[in-house]
């Protein structure tokens, strides 16, 4: 009871305000981030699962084994199978190499299969969500099959040996993906008819897929059983492996959010520690008084422990509430712009915030207060008695440990956290040394300059240790803020560059040389601009340096097992980078064609510069020597090739062309027009995937923006705490100076100079530190190109000077403007 009363009175007296606000901020930052990322991740996963048509897919070149199905029956799990292969379909004298997919009942487990009775339907009223799969004897197909075979709904055509009736057209298939190797129109049939078609023969290339959907825990326990039984031909596909571009964006975003959480907590931690120290200093007298009144150490400990716990609990609740509120705000702001349903966060997302509260309390608040219960009661009589607390470096060590623990908990990446904290420590030590040096220099200069300056420099020097610590704290806060601000700018710019609003979202494959010009013309007549027009031939890699690759290499390198797309290009796309060898403009080797190979493919194949590759292109042979190794950015959503030939190398092989185009939802009908006119063209629709990534980038950007503000608040709080920490002494000094007749203007002037100097110096060091930190984060953590931040140097330093100067004068103005007598009495 007494403890609560005291807490209330302390609160009223303003003694715990900074402490409480910093605690609340720490909890709020962490919980906001963890709740937000949790919800985002959940939304993303559930959304992405519809791209798979399931939660997990087992992909195999063999039929799914019956014993697995038996095993699956024991679990509460939905399953379905799909069987995909290329097969000729016939009607009268017309035929087409279709991409056939036989599906079992239940397909798709997640997402929607959209169908219509009208070919090329775009009108929402004509499009229905399929309830179930094609019945036995029936078949559904892409609209473009109709012009290809001259069909209409209700007609029959044959797949292998079986005649089937076309009952509907497929408008949208959730798990079609971006498969650049399936050229044929989709024909979807019931699994039961598969045997009757007789197309599946030993040796046919077939992709079997087993779709699974269940609760995550059920899935995990099932897969842990299944995994040991899988052969190298079978692969578990999850969302991440299915959507790498998205995964990388999200990963970067998470790293950034984590970093801001860490910086936020670090700043809040410093503010908490400073506030706690000040609290302790101010409470030595109170404890001595309590003791003289007969309170035992145990009682004092209890009184303060209860105060802290209650304070911690209140801060935690408020922090959680604020965190929750903020992320709801983001979510609802986003919901109005993007059609994204964010599901509520799982309860575990609330834990990091609470853990942060407890750790902050234990590691930042408790150490500075540790000695309070053992303050000797004689202190009440002998005011001059020095009360030594827990040594500063112990407190610092504990604080740093706490940081590492916190970050490690969030990131589960000990190295990331340790290295960032380590870098900050080194920077802080250097800052301290540098600051001390500057102060010494300053005192020599101070003797030669005007009185206002002398006063300011003297003040800095008198409390040299204090000044160094202050400078360090300011420097740290500014450094972290600068780092975060410019990182957020680069990150968001980088994302927007990666997927600008009009990123091509449809790829047109298999455009024949004869159609090439007509297609361009059609596009132009619709006001569309086509992006690239890559020539392309389908080829199979058969020999490396004149010999056939071993089975082992074949296992490893997927491009040896299927046809690859070859292209040639005069110039290099922005998102391609040569890491070895030379591009065509510098490459000269008479008599052979050159080829540029993607780095990972080269590694899988075990080839390097100068090796010879032989391809078979529809029975013809094509030889080329490796001239360069390239890296690609797959998340750029541009057409990219593992193999790029030197100009002219493909002239003899009648290439088809690939192009990409941006279609807005209103323009989407163009696809139909195109396919009606050119049914052999394959259109790969990336608009859903790209829209999803763009919406996620938008969500994450808003989140990051908000985090930045929270962290800025943290930085401000640290500076406020650091300025307030010296307020008691300053009050006395200033009042004394004023009592001795110093004019107010002069005092204000010297205060301004003192704090601006502190701020400016801190700014310089912060800028250096931020630059080092930024470069290393870009390089090690985010994997971005290195670049210097020149603008930062200027406005970082100036900003720090102005900000801290203003903050100092603002906080001290009362001391300067109230009558000195009143202040002296207050200080007693």
């Amino acid at each position: 009871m007494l403890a609560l009363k005291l807490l209330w009175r302390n609160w009223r007296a303003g003694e715990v305000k900074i402490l409480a606000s910093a605690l609340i901020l720490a909890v709020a930052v962490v919980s906001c981030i963890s709740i937000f990322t949790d919800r985002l991740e959940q939304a993303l996963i559930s959304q992405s699962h519809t791209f798979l048509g399931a939660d997990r897919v087992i992909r195999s070149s063999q039929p799914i084994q019956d014993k697995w199905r038996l095993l699956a029956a024991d679990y509460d799990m939905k399953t379905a199978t799909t069987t995909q292969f290329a097969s000729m379909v016939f009607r009268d004298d017309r035929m087409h190499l279709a991409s056939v997919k036989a599906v079992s009942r239940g397909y798709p487990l997640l997402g929607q299969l959209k169908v219509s009775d009208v070919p090329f339907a775009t009108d929402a009223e004509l499009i229905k969500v399929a309830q179930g799969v094609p019945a036995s004897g029936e078949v559904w197909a892409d609209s473009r099959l109709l012009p290809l075979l001259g069909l209409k709904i209700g007609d029959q055509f044959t797949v292998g040996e079986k005649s089937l009736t076309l009952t509907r057209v497929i408008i949208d298939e959730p798990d079609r993906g971006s498969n650049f190797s399936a050229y044929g129109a989709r024909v979807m049939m019931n699994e039961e008819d598969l045997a009757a078609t007789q197309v599946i023969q030993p040796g046919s290339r077939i992709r079997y897929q087993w779709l699974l959907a269940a609760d995550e825990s059920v899935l995990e326990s099932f897969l842990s059983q299944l995994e040991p039984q899988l052969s190298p031909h079978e692969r578990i596909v999850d969302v991440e492996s299915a959507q790498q571009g998205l995964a990388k964006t999200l990963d970067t975003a998470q790293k950034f959010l984590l970093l801001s959480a860490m910086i936020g907590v670090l700043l809040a931690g410093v503010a908490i520690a400073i506030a706690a120290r000040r609290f302790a200093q101010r409470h030595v007298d109170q404890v001595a008084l309590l003791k003289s009144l007969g309170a035992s150490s145990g009682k004092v400990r209890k009184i303060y422990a209860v105060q802290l716990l209650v304070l911690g609990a209140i801060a935690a609740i408020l922090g959680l509430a604020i965190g929750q509120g903020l992320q709801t705000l983001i979510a609802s702001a986003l919901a109005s712009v993007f059609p994204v349903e964010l599901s509520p966060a799982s309860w575990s997302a609330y834990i990091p915030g609470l853990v942060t509260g407890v750790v902050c309390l234990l590691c930042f608040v408790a150490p500075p207060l540790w000695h309070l219960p053992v303050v000797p009661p004689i202190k009440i009589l002998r005011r001059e008695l020095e009360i030594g607390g827990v040594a500063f470096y112990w407190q610092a060590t504990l604080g740093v440990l706490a940081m590492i623990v916190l970050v490690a908990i969030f990131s589960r990446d000990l190295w990331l956290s340790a290295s960032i904290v380590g870098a900050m420590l080194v920077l802080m030590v250097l800052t301290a040394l540098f600051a001390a040096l500057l102060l010494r220099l300053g005192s020599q200069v101070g003797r030669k300059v005007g009185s206002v300056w002398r006063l300011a420099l003297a003040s800095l020097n008198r409390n040299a240790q204090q000044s160094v610590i202050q400078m360090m704290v300011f420097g740290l806060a500014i450094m972290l803020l600068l780092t975060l601000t410019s990182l957020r700018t680069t990150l968001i710019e980088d994302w927007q560059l990666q997927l600008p609003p009009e990123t091509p979202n449809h790829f047109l494959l298999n455009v024949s040389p004869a159609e090439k010009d007509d297609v361009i013309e059609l596009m132009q007549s619709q006001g569309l601009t086509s992006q690239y027009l890559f020539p392309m031939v389908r080829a199979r890699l058969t020999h490396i340096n004149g010999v056939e690759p071993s089975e082992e290499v074949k296992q490893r390198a997927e491009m040896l097992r299927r046809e690859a797309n070859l292209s040639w290009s005069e110039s290099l796309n922005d998102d391609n980078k040569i890491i070895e060898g030379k591009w065509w403009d510098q490459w000269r080797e008479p008599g052979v064609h050159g080829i540029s190979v993607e780095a990972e493919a080269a590694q899988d194949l075990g080839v390097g510069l100068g090796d010879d590759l032989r391809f078979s292109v529809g029975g013809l042979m094509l030889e080329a020597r490796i001239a360069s190794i390239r890296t690609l950015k797959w998340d750029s959503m541009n057409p990219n090739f593992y193999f790029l030939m030197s100009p002219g190398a493909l002239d003899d092989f009648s290439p088809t062309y690939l192009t990409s185009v941006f279609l807005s939802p209103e323009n989407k009908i163009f696809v139909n027009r195109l396919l009606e006119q050119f049914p052999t063209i394959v259109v790969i629709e990336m608009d859903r995937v790209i829209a999803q990534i763009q919406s996620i980038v938008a969500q994450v950007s808003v989140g990051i923006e908000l985090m930045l503000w929270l962290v800025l608040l943290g930085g401000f709080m640290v500076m406020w705490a650091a300025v307030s920490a010296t307020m008691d002494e300053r009050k006395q000094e200033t009042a004394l100076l004023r009592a001795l007749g110093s004019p107010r203007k002069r005092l204000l002037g010297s205060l301004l100079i003192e704090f601006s100097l502190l701020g400016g110096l801190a700014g310089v060091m912060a800028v250096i530190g931020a630059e080092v930190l930024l470069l290393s984060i870009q390089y090690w953590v985010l994997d971005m190109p290195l670049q210097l931040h020149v603008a930062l140097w200027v406005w970082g330093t100036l900003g720090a000077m102005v900000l801290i100067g203003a903050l100092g004068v603002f906080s001290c103005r009362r001391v300067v403007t109230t009558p000195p007598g009143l202040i002296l009495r207050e200080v007693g």
Partner: protein
Amino acid sequence: MLNAQSLTKKVSTAAGELIILDEVSLQLQAGDSLAITGASGSGKSTLLGILAGLDEPTSGKISLHQHELTELGEEGRAKVRAAHVGFVFQSFQLLPGLTALENVMMPLELHGIDNAKGKAEFFLTRVGLNKRLDHYPQQLSGGEQQRVAIARAFASEPDVLFADEPTGNLDSATGAHVIELLFELNREQGTTLILVTHEQRLAQHCQQRISLEAGKVVERVCEQGVALSEVG
């Protein structure tokens, strides 16, 4: 009531061992009053602190209200202080964040005494501050602050009240008023009073007076026939 024998306090400093108190003995009955005088640095505050159980002597014995303070640890002494001792200090030692009323309630609340508020109000009225209950220390004059401190000291109805230069920071008129208060309450409650003072006027009020010089008792006065044990 209070019996101190051969109290010695030595501290080791950089310049060697320093004797702050040298074989001080004294004895007081309940309701007595004692003034400790002496030059600055003569050891007055040190003696007061040891007598009150705030500090330990290097050697010697003190018994306060049948408790052998020198045989108790800090926790034991805290109990004795809680039960029997009150303080008034030179710099008033009010908590700046608390109102006058709350400052007086503090020891009562600490000891879990019922009706802390009523008692505190009573004592503040007693020292003439019933109109200033909700004022903070910085809104009160030095004399008023000291009256709050006195109210706080008496509110827990101690058997012994220790005061270290209670008028040291006050002008003489205010000081006189504070002294009057102290002795009035001393008479009303039968409290034993031990004060350190520079002021002869204040010392004159006490039945016993000792004067210190470099930690030694150099003068000892005992009025109204109060028995005073001879010391060696």
